[in-house]
């Protein structure tokens, strides 16, 4: 039987105290009220501040409930912020892989493209930021589904785009299990004939999956002759996903995704 975690109990107490009180409370007031040592209280408050559950007034230094606490049910990271914070790592992924890069999140059961980097060959391409992709027929979508990013769930009806699209719930469930096992996702001619994609989850603090980053292109470039994603490209994608995740506050145990 795992025991309870004392610091989480204390954090819950801090949140209740702030929710119940009127106005902002100082560190001293909070630690006095909960009969906790000041350094302990301070550590809890700073952690809660980092995840957005608590806000600190810039002038007085007093604490109140954070906006994120009131919006717990909605997406935690603004999509434009996700783009801003990943742009530095999406570019090297495109340069190293030679393919177009996209970052996606979930919107209405589909993949919303929040960032797009052209394939670096200087051919004419158009930005498709803001467009929607099918969640079960893209590597980005499978990465989001596999980790239930933003509560993503498989659509009831699985549209078939090619003969390779996952056509049954069972097939999809199996594919998602494989994604979780591997830590990355792929899609080979499941959306368009002749095209393939690779993606990996973007994580924030506590491992929370907030999006996915991936590359897509001609199947002969993305895959080897057995239609398997090329390991070097998989490594590029996972490295980029890890770099973005680290910047968002994720920590990794022993190099796991």
């Amino acid at each position, binding site marked *: 039987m795992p025991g309870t975690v004392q610091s989480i109990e204390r954090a819950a107490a801090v949140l209740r105290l702030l929710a119940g009180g009127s106005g902002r409370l100082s560190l001293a007031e909070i630690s006095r009220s909960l009969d906790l040592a000041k350094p302990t209280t301070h550590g809890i408050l700073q952690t809660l501040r980092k995840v957005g559950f608590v806000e600190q007034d810039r002038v007085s230094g007093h604490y109140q409930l954070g*906006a994120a606490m009131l919006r717990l049910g909605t997406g935690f990271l*603004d*999509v*434009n*912020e996700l*783009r*801003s*914070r990943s*742009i*530095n*790592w999406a*570019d*090297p992924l*495109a*340069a*190293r892989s030679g393919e177009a890069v996209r970052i996606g999140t979930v919107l209405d059961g589909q993949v919303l493209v929040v960032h*797009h*980097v*052209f394939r*670096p*060959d*200087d051919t004419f*391409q*158009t*930005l498709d*930021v*803001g467009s929607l992709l099918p969640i079960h027929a893209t590597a980005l979508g499978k990465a989001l589904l596999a980790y239930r990013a933003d509560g993503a769930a498989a659509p009831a009806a699985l549209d078939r785009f090619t003969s390779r699209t996952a056509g049954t719930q069972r097939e999809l469930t199996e594919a998602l299990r494989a994604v979780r096992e591997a830590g990355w996702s792929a899609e080979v001619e499941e959306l368009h004939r002749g095209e393939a994609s690779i993606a990996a989850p973007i994580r924030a603090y506590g491992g929370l999956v907030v999006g996915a980053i991936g590359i897509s292109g001609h199947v002969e470039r993305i895959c080897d002759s057995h239609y398997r994603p090329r390991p070097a490209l998989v490594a590029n994608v996972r490295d980029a996903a890890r770099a973005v995740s680290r910047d968002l506050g994720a920590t990794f145990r022993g190099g796991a995704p």
Partner: protein
Amino acid sequence: MTERYVVAIDQGTTSTRCIVIDRRGQLVSLAQQEHKQHFPKPGWVEHDAAEIWRNVERLGPEALRRAGATIDQVAAIGIANQRETTILWDKKTGQPIGHAVVWQDTRTDTMVGRLDHLPGAEGVRHRSGLPLATYFSGPRVRWMLDHTPGLLERAERGEVLFGTMETWLIWKLTGGLHVTDVTNASRTLLLDIHTLDWSPASLEFFGIPRAMLPEVRPSIGVFGTATAAFPGVRIGAALGDQQAALFGQTCFAPGEAKCTYGTGSFLLLNTGSELVRSTHGLLSTVAYQIKGEPAAYALEGSIAITGSLVQWFRDQLELIASAPEIETLARTVSDNGGCYIVPAFSGLYAPHWRSEARGVIVGLTSYITKGHLARAVLEASAWQTREVVDAMNADSGLALKTLRVDGGMTADNLLMQYIADVLDVPVVRPLAAETVSLGAAYGAGLAVGYWPDLEGLRQNWHRAAQWMPTMDAERRDSEYANWKRAVSRTFDWIQG
């Protein structure tokens, strides 16, 4: 060869970044730290140079650690820095004398107003390629000498040193080398941009002793070897951040231009070895100089407030929690609702150069929501760009065909689309958002032979995104007319 990387130090207005870059010009790792902004009085902006140096000392090793690199794998260091910010320090102790006075600081406005009318002013303008404005370093040095008892005498005896940020960092990195590069020197009002050395006449005009000035060197060429932060590594380049971005965008040929969107925004056009003088409110400045070669010059349109307007919206109005949320908020409405914001917070820079102007919000009605204000904030960056592009087209006699952009604001798709719309040209972002660092790295790598030549660097440039204009001409023209009327409302606000 074990030298696999070049390290760039990007010492900016709001933060310092250390960046490790590989042979293909791609980011390997990044370590960043903001420093404190001191606002002791309205219009005053200061930094603590000692704090900034401590950040560099810490970020360098941190960036290497994140890259999994060792110091012997670093071929060279390149420095790009916030320009015009002015630091004085004690030669013997290495202690800064007071805070650094930042480029946005307007404390010298009365002095500059007075100096501008003196007979010698025309000569200063001609030699430096700049208008007399609070923006540049020279008047700041004079102000600091005037306001610290005994400082002038010590400066004359060579006990007090002046530097812009790259000078300070090189001095700290090398343990006492007092040098600047031509691009930073060209922002002081003290350099003769033809001879590329300090102008005795301009020094006399401002009353600044030669003994406190650093030696002027080419931007690209080994300055010395670091003994601190990166012991044993050569410093291969130093450039002002905007010139570094021009270099990072590989705008090596005359006619090539870029605009960087950070705290402020700066459009630079390479004019080659020819010094072009603007008749439309742009600056003439040095783009870069490779050791042993003639300098390349640039025309510059400097816009003081763009990204910092977003920061003001976030920190002072508290209408958003992070800068990128401005786009989310702006997308809650479909247009500006008739509202315009002109952020003349420290006067207006190019092409107006009106130091007495102050910001306005016009067109307010009870219809206006925070969404409209967010639109107006973003649109202000676009219209200010339009003004400097118009000036550049008029000066060069050529119409800009595409705009190359970089900097933090290029993550904002709504803004980039709006810039394409108001300029009526495609806007292109290269495959390297940190172009300032890239330019410093390119310079340093060239200096030590890590990269062979400019042509090789051009191969690294790729288009990462492009926004095509979609606005109809009629709407563009009427919005521009509104913007111009809004700008005229900012003039003559400060009276004196």
